[in-house]
């Protein structure tokens, strides 16, 4: 059995101390140890993007990051981003525009979209499509997601003027 190590980190604003196997991925840690099941496992390969979470404010693949690597970090998952209200506008726009169907990709898609808007407040449709091309969605065909993100970008721009 793989060796265990102790990690200390902040998850969704709460301090966490846990012993984890060295091989445990960050997304498995969140899901299995902390019961934060909003981050999903789609490929365990770094391709589908369903496991996307924030580590110290940057989006990362939760399946390619070890829990041990998050030692000392601040991790935000969809549960934290939802409860804080920071992506409420994106969530509302996705709902209004039906930019989700089965919802399995959605938490990660929201976190990725929010990261784009923080970097580029005025993305074109092509910018949005390019940025989200690391997040696989089998249901929507992406058009509605692009619409929703574009609409939030516009509202956020107008609100910041």
């Amino acid at each position, binding site marked *: *059995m793989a060796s265990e190590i102790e990690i200390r980190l902040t998850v969704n604003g709460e301090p966490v101390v846990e012993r984890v*196997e060295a*091989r445990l991925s960050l997304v498995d840690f969140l*899901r299995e140890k902390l019961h*934060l*099941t*909003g*981050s*999903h*496992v*789609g*490929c*365990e*390969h770094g*391709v*589908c993007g*369903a496991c996307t979470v924030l580590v110290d404010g940057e989006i990362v693949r939760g399946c390619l990051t070890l829990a041990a690597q998050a030692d000392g970090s601040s991790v935000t*998952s*969809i*549960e934290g981003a*939802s409860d804080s209200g920071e992506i409420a506008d994106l*969530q509302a726009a*996705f*709902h*209004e*525009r*039906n930019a*989700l*169907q*089965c*919802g*399995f*990709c*959605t*938490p990660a898609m*929201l976190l990725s979209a929010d990261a784009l808007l923080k970097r580029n407040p005025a993305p074109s*449709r092509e910018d*949005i*499509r*390019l940025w*989200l*091309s*690391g*997040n*696989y*969605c*089998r*249901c*929507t*065909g*992406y*058009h*509605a*997601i*692009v619409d929703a993100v574009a609409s939030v970008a516009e509202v956020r721009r107008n609100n910041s003027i």
Partner: protein
Amino acid sequence: MNETSPLSVLDRPNSYIGRSVPRPNAKRLLQGRGTFIDDKKLPRMAHVVFARSPHAHAEILSIGTDAAKASAGVIAVVNGEEMKAVCTPWVGVLSHLQGLKSQPQYPLAVGKACWQGEPVVAVVATSRAAAEDAADKLEIDWRELEPVTDMETALSAKTPVIHADLGDNLAWKREFNAGDVDAAFAASGATLVEEAFLFGRHTGVTLEPRAILSDYDPAEEQLTVYHAHQAPHMMQGIFASHFGIEEHKVRVICEDVGGSFGIKVHTYPDEMATVALSIMLRRPIKFIADRLESFTTDIHARDHRITARMAVDGDGRILGIEMDDLTGIGPFSVYPRTSGIEANQVVNLTGAQYTNQNYRARATVVFQNKTPMCQYRAVGHPIATAVTEGLLDSAAAAIGMDAVEIRRRNLVADDAYPCKAPSGLSFEKLSHHASLNRLVEMMGYDGLRREQARLRGEGVHRGIGIATFVELTNPSAMFYGVGGARISAQDGCTLRLDARGNVFCSTGVTEQGQGAEAVIAQVAATALGVPLERIKMITGDTDTVPYGGGTWASRGAGIGGEAAAQAGHALRRNILEVAGVILQARPETLDVRGGAVVDMADGRERIGLDEIGRIAYFRADTLPKDFQSELMVTRHYVPKEYPFAFTNGVQASLVEVDTDTGFVTLLKHWAVEDCGTVINPQLVDEQIRGGIVQGIGAALFEHCLYDERGQLLNGTMADYLVPMSAEMPDIEVAHMESPTRDSELGAKGAGEAGTAGAPAAVLNAINDALRPLGATVNAHPATPEVILKALGKV
């Protein structure tokens, strides 16, 4: 029209029919609060992983389990022989697909494995990681057998027979002949075109992999299965049959399901094995397929080689069509829907949108040592549409006619219904011409043609592809039930008024993200007369919802919706009876609107539904002794007039082909869809868009590549290409509405139309771009390599 309803569900006041209201149950998914199978944990739950065959065809000589059993955390190691004791085998045949045969199939391979990925040994442990560690320690001795991989030679005498008991590798054969094809092809002035089409294997790639959590309570002899599945009642019956448990002691619960598309409507051996283990070990067992397992064990789709011919006269009228389909289905016909339906649909649907009645077709369905093939979104439609529309474009080019014009000359006239396709399919009412006209207008067809010609002069190769099609929806019992499968075509809806005037609505159709719960709620709210937010939807639990088929073949809105409409009418009548007693009024002078009982004539509010609930449930003593309120009703519906409610649609694709690299850029896609009454336009649009992108995946990217030994070469998400946002075009959608009169609601399905038409539209667009260069591409996916080969550049 309902006998006592003052208005049909389409004429109710404050109607939600035709309104794009947001889905009521989507908010939890946006907050990461959905409940997918892998999110669930039960007390004493253990995890199973499967050792799978590394070979496409191999005899199991021995299975050494000592090291695996000694591995940390291991609870049990079980092989196929041991599992036979608790699970009877199944055979995927249907009596109406006459002659279809298959071999009995077990949860774990017994004696030999027939495809790479077939489960062989189950390892149960306290965690999935521990089970995987142990599975690595299994010692399985194999003797490799010659695999059958090429369907062209599957029936030749030199090819080994996969299942000796079956005698040969032929699963099924269908021959069909209508009219006089030979005379049509020999007619003077006929122009003949012939094409050979290749449709590669692809698969569903649901983002949530297949998943099941099975719990068995030996004290109550109760099996409870949490299942990522589309058809819980079907699985209830299958578990009962094969595990020898009374059906009412089997409960199947489908909570949030992360995409299905027909992938999650079948019986999978590893899922049956998981249920078997929960019975054997008397504790909850969870199986979550990982992505590598998904690629080799989720059903694959398509895999057709088709040669087809079409004759047209000088006016572009189709004189005859001939089609020969060879398709490989893997080593078993999948249970219980069978792997013969896809080829059957290809035969039935080819040329079905056109007036031509001279049609000959042959379908040959063979076994091979590859992943089993079965129904996936749009079953057979993309093949039939690509063949028909590809031939028609070739014919148009041969006689120098425009692609839209030749379709106008052949599509069944909008006033010619009811009518029949050459294969015998009945069409109640379609709108091919109106839809094509709408599409041409929406896309600015003439302007695009001018732009195409101008850019051609600059060395830019753009193409416009059109695809018309029909789609089978709302299947009656003629689809599966008639062939002996316990798959319900009917569905039900139960409505219950609670004590505060809210409504519980449970339905047998299921939700995997399409918005089934939303449209059922919209119909129920409309028929009943309550605000949408008063309705709570309950789906996916065989203990609590009416018996029904679930969600597949675009049946949810049309069949589940009609049941909801009738339930809504019935509960409204019952509420009005209670109100009539309370108000001393005749029920027919009252109505339910906006969640209150009102006067029918002027809409004046008389009593709230909360008050109806209070009196009926708590103060029945104030009602007459001979009156009993009934505030819970159930209604069912099954299509009866027509075996299927066909829809029609037309799509167009605009592409640019880089003739140096073979890359195709999708510039825009358009769709006009006629699915009858549109309950929620936004949800229909998004079904169409999502379906189109899945069709584009098949047309350009997705391909399960095998070597000659039957090894899947690209079974990871890094190697198997799926459509991602950057490459996908914007998609414009419009609707026509030709309701079915088989129901009051008039809704038909919309779930598969996008996938049915998109590959044909994209391939026709590519060929439109390539035609002046003398190249034709008829292989799906049309990869850059395929295109460069067609151009003679590689």
